């Protein structure tokens, strides 16, 4: 009798586990939760967990609860594949990742192979932040969907703004030495050259990804070059430390960035005292003026105690729900088909579309600057008292770029 009780005690929880695994939609969240990218990865995780909680509170997706599986990839492509396999073994049919295009390329390739080898057990890859253009061009995959604007879309919008700023004469490029940083640098050279041939590129730097602890030698070089503006795709500690070193050395230039708003960035900008001289390009920001987005921001900050850094994650999860409902299934193959060419009202207002040709999501893009807030701008960042201010908005049709993707469909 005692043995039987024991056996039941051991087996019963397992059964319960198996039953709930059938019901829940597991999403493997593969991003850095340790190392130099940890601050960014943890913010993303909290965002997805918040979104999952919100959806679950309203009955989940087609009655299925959503569960986020946090998996630490240390920003390492090799480690990411191990984690992806772990997610699949744990029953995840959806994987989401964002930090590091080198990781994204490896994951996209891994999942494409996995789906070819295991028909009936397909996995979808939702990319919310890896912006290397090649992922929706020469390396495109049917199983990969990207909600962030790719690097060339962002650079197109950024240079459209920069070309009208007559005071820009000398530009310095500093980027991380990997696929994304290299694409920022190449796009900046090409687009600035075409739109403002009079602008001089006085420096073009690549530094190791998330390894530099002291940027003062780089700042000295920027200063010596006489640049008036710096263009950088740096993110995470690579941005915060770059600005910290600039603040220490008293470097006064305009910064055109992709990710100035990431963890540590706003604090560093406030330290430099560069009021509305640091610009960033995003698909949304807290003070965008859209009522729905601002309500969401308020609730998010109250619960998570972070500012919403990934409006695209909101779009991703909401659109996932809409696609599953349209397909009336949570089967990845049907969801993928439903997502193609799907139009969707994004968080910050305006209509976006998931293009069928390359699975890139196109949406309105904003250039904003960081500094003292106006009366109608309620949100500051990292308790600095400063926040993001709208500089220019690019609508979806103007934020579209062509693709060379030759999609292989199953």
């Amino acid at each position, binding site marked *: 009798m005692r043995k039987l009780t024991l056996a039941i005690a051991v087996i019963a929880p397992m059964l319960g586990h198996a039953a709930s695994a059938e019901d829940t939609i597991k999403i493997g969240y593969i991003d850095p939760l340790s190392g*130099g990218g*940890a601050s960014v990865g943890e913010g993303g995780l909290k965002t997805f967990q918040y979104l999952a909680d919100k959806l679950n509170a309203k009955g989940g997706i087609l009655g299925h609860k959503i569960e986020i599986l946090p998996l630490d990839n240390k920003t390492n492509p090799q480690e990411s594949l191990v984690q992806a396999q772990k997610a699949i073994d744990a029953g995840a049919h959806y994987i989401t990742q964002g930090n590091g295009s080198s990781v994204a390329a490896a994951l996209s390739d891994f999942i494409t192979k996995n789906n070819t080898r295991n028909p009936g057990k397909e996995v979808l890859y939702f990319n919310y932040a890896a912006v290397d253009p090649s992922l929706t061009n020469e390396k495109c995959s049917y199983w990969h969907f990207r909600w962030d604007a790719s690097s060339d879309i962002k650079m197109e919008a950024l240079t459209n703004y920069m070309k009208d700023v007559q005071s820009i004469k000398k530009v310095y490029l500093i980027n991380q030495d990997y696929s994304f940083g290299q694409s920022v640098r190449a796009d900046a050279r090409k687009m600035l050259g075409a739109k403002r041939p009079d602008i001089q590129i006085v420096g073009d730097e690549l530094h190791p990804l998330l390894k530099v*602890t*002291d940027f003062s030698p780089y700042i000295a070089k920027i200063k010596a070059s006489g640049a008036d503006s710096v263009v950088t795709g740096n993110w995470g500690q690579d941005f915060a430390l770059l600005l910290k070193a600039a603040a220490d050395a*008293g470097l006064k230039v305009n910064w055109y960035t992709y990710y100035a708003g990431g963890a540590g960035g706003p604090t560093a900008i406030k330290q430099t005292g560069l009021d509305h001289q640091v610009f960033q390009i995003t698909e949304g920001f807290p003070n965008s003026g859209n009522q729905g987005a601002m309500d969401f921001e308020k609730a998010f900050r109250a619960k998570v105690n972070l500012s919403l850094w990934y409006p695209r994650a909101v779009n991703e999860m909401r659109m996932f729900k809409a696609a599953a409902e349209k397909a009336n299934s949570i089967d990845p193959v049907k969801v993928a088909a439903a997502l193609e060419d799907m139009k969707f009202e994004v968080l910050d207002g305006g209509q976006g579309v998931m293009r069928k040709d390359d699975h890139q999501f196109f949406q309105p893009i904003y250039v904003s600057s960081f500094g003292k807030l106006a009366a109608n701008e309620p949100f500051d960042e990292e308790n600095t008292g400063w926040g993001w201010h709208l500089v220019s908005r690019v609508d979806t049709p103007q934020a579209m770029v062509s693709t060379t993707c030759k999609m292989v469909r199953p």
Partner: protein
Amino acid sequence: MLELVVISTLNGVLFGMLLFLLSSGLTVIFSMMGVLNFAHASFYMLGAFFGFQLTKWIGFWPALVLAPLLVGAIGMAVERYGLRNTHKHGHVAELLLTFGLAFAIEEIVSMIWGKSPLDYRVPSLLDFPAFTIFSTNYPAYKIFMLAVSIIIFVALLIVLKRTRVGLIVQAALTHPHMVGHLGHNVGRVFMAVFGVGSALAGLAGVIAGPALVTQSDMAASLGPILFVVIVFGGLGSLPGAFIASLVIGLVQTFAVALDGSLASAFGPLDPSAGPSVLTDIWNVTIAQVAPIVPYVLLVIILIVRPMGLMGTRES
């Protein structure tokens, strides 16, 4: 150009002194005990986290004294209850113990403080530009770091070479039994040396924490370069470590400042003009490879002069 040279020299010296601050404790432990302490960078990390926590509670200046003492106490406990027992099994066992300890400390730190960077600020007393040269500011805090490094270097040299304490410590390494017969407690001497070495690492942590990033991977990111410093300078040689720190700081800073590539060395005969698989290699600039330059130096010195710059023995 002059501007870049002057500023790079300053930056190089400042970075070099930080490296020395870190490697001094490691050198002391190695030269006095013959233990290559793999957990040294972890003690440095503990120093930074203790410094952060104590600064929050009681302010930066008390933390500057208390945190190294705490780390030193942990170091002494490690020697007393860990290293002393493994000592009889030889150096490999000691090495493995410190190696395991490094992982354990990293995990414990990330369990307590999380994996994100902490908001560890420079104390407001030192938060101003000390001087301006070529319109570049030098923060007072960096000058403070420089001063502390030099004070530690001088103090260590005097204690080890000019006092009775230093004499006993050095004798204990080569003739432990003789020193014991003279009435000194050799075990306690080793424990104190390990404690002082760890405390120095802790001090480096408290000071470097606000200047660099305080997070749970800081040990892993600075650990390897410390070994470069002490091997390059000569294992166990304090002046060697001092010179090596300066050389590595300067080399790394100047490498960043240089834009030349292999291809540009050929002038108009640029070999990268023709398409080939080697194009990328020809066009890599010195700035891009700056972070690996110290490791290349390490390999070269091991081939050319295995005992290091100022080392006296080969192992």
